[in-house]
């Protein structure tokens, strides 16, 4: 779980002092210092995400080599001539395997986050709308799942269902579901208490229209941002599961699995240890930067 938690309900009351300060200070933060990353960083991140997208759909654009073509005469060749990033212990081209592994690595992150979003949002809405008892029960249930550290939860699921791509996605999504449930519930409750929702009621909109026109669209922003940032977290954790040998099984090209399969050779060859990791880190970094950028923009918009 390498995500900055985004949780509007998680802010303790002490953090934001109730008060009158508005105007320049807050606005300034939103516009300038609130962005945790620089503008060129954001541009680079979005550019890299585009590259990743291209690589997952058209890997041929980046490499002509077959990722699974083993060549016993070419094992553990260093980066350079012939193989830009070197070869692994089976003589397979590392660059080709990274490029072809993009799709699966991204897919694991995306689908885990999406699954968590759908399930979490449903729970969150139910908890927000369902009165006190249901709210308390969901709260308890979420706490139960949160009480188990993310990685262990995934390990428990895999212990139950067995290793593999599908099961690791299920395990990962379980980690992120409580976060979504809380954000959705918090957003719904925050917006429901807002003056603009009351104003919409005062205009005469029936309940359903108020929900469709004001509640849902306003709740969507923070939820989608959390989803974005969680994709990064899910890619990171997904690669961890793969590294532990619990995700996609060999000889599938996937970043974490690549690291897993050549770990015995790290002491003699550094390149199979480094390059797939750089791919994971850059992907997660780009998504995190993009997510935090979107978050800062949304906060800037909603700040007074």
């Amino acid at each position: 779980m390498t995500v900055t938690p985004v949780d509007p309900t998680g802010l303790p009351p002490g953090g934001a002092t109730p008060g009158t300060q508005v105007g320049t200070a807050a606005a300034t933060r939103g516009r300038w210092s609130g962005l945790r990353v620089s503008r060129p960083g954001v541009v680079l991140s979005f550019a890299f995400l585009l590259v990743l997208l291209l690589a997952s759909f058209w890997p041929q654009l980046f490499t002509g080599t077959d990722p699974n073509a083993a060549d016993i005469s070419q094992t553990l060749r260093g980066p350079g001539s012939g193989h830009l990033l070197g070869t692994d212990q089976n003589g397979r081209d590392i660059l080709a395997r990274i490029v072809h592994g993009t799709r699966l690595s991204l897919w694991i992150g995306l689908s885990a986050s999406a699954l968590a979003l759908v399930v979490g949002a449903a729970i969150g809405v139910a908890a927000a709308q369902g009165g006190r008892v249901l709210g308390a029960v969901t709260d308890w249930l979420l706490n139960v799942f949160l009480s188990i550290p993310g990685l262990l939860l995934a390990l428990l699921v895999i212990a139950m269902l067995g290793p593999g791509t599908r099961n690791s996605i299920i395990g990962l999504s379980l980690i992120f579901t409580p976060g979504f449930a809380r954000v959705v519930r918090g957003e719904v409750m925050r917006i429901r208490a807002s003056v603009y929702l009351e104003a919409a009621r005062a205009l005469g909109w029936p309940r359903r229209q108020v929900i469709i026109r004001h509640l849902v669209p306003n709740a969507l922003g923070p939820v989608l941002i959390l989803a974005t940032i969680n994709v990064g977290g899910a890619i990171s954790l997904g690669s961890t599961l793969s590294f532990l040998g619990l995700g996609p099984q060999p000889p599938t090209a996937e970043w974490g699995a690549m690291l897993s399969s050549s770990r015995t050779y790290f002491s003699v060859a550094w390149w199979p240890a480094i390059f797939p990791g750089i791919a994971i880190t850059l992907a997660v970094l780009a998504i995190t930067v993009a997510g935090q950028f979107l978050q800062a923009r949304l906060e800037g918009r909603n700040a007074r």
Partner: protein
Amino acid sequence: MTIALAADERRAGGFTASSARSIGLAVLRRVGYAVGVLWGAVTVTFAALHLKSGGIIDAIIGQATVSPEVRAQIISDYALDRPWLVQYFDYLGHLLRGDLGHSYNQGMDVTTAIGDQLAPSFELMAAGVVLALVGAIVVALLTANRPRWIRGPFAFLEIVGVSVPAFWFAILLLTVFSFQLHWFPAIGSNSVRGLVLPAIALAVAPGGTLAQVLRDGLERALDEPFVTTARSRGIRETAVLVRHALRHALMPAITIAGWLAGAFLGGAIVIENVFSRQGLGTLTVGGLGRRDFPLVSGVVLIAAAFYVVINLIIDAVYPLLDPRLRPVAPTTSGPANAAAASITSTTSPSPSATGADQEGDR
């Protein structure tokens, strides 16, 4: 992000408490809730065992080979020939007696297996926590509200730290400092020297998050009017930071403490694996490979208990940091009336909002 609702709960519970007795009740409620969460976690692991494809008996045995006699023994021990409800209460009964089950792969009780590995894991986590905490606080204090050229690089490093998967960062450290430079022992050493790289690898991600949250909190606090007031008294900037701002910045950091605890535990599992260190992580991953279900569920329960205790501590720390969260003692002058008037004030425009625009005057 883990204890937000617990905090809400505490607010609701804490504030209506109006005497020492009800404070005691509130504490009792808190502990009761914690036990409830733990019970939930137990139930989840029980359910996981029973939802597992294949026979429960095979799950318990894992890949160990056992004689038919032992097999029969297990069936009667776990009441596997009885209805599932009986099995469930049987399971709870075992747990209440401190019996986490028997690992047939390890050939010993789960309690013993975990107990043996607790110390090295604790050592690693303690080192990581200290590193992350000290690093984050120092970085946050030094970079909050500073010029871009100071703040920027650190902010970038934090975001990288948050993004890099702990296991790969461990591999990176290992490759560079052990395999290439030979500065640190590579594998399996439980010496202090051998602790350096794993602790760094463990501290990076939570430390990065913590530094982000702390600096954010510091910068928010430094924008508050009470900081301007404090400065106008002529006190040192260090005093402003430490005496006034840090306290407020710690609140959001403590809010994520429960989540951080989980991050450290999860991180330790992977990092032990990479460095081939002794500890819970190696035990767990090994157990997973051999389908040692009793062992894995035992670790899960220990972790959940850990989380629950951390959150109880957090709950106790909140009011220490922010007096506004402390229970209110009743006033002598007609408490009902007084509270009544103040409720209305929440529904009518607050007088402070009246002056809202003045602050924008600069």
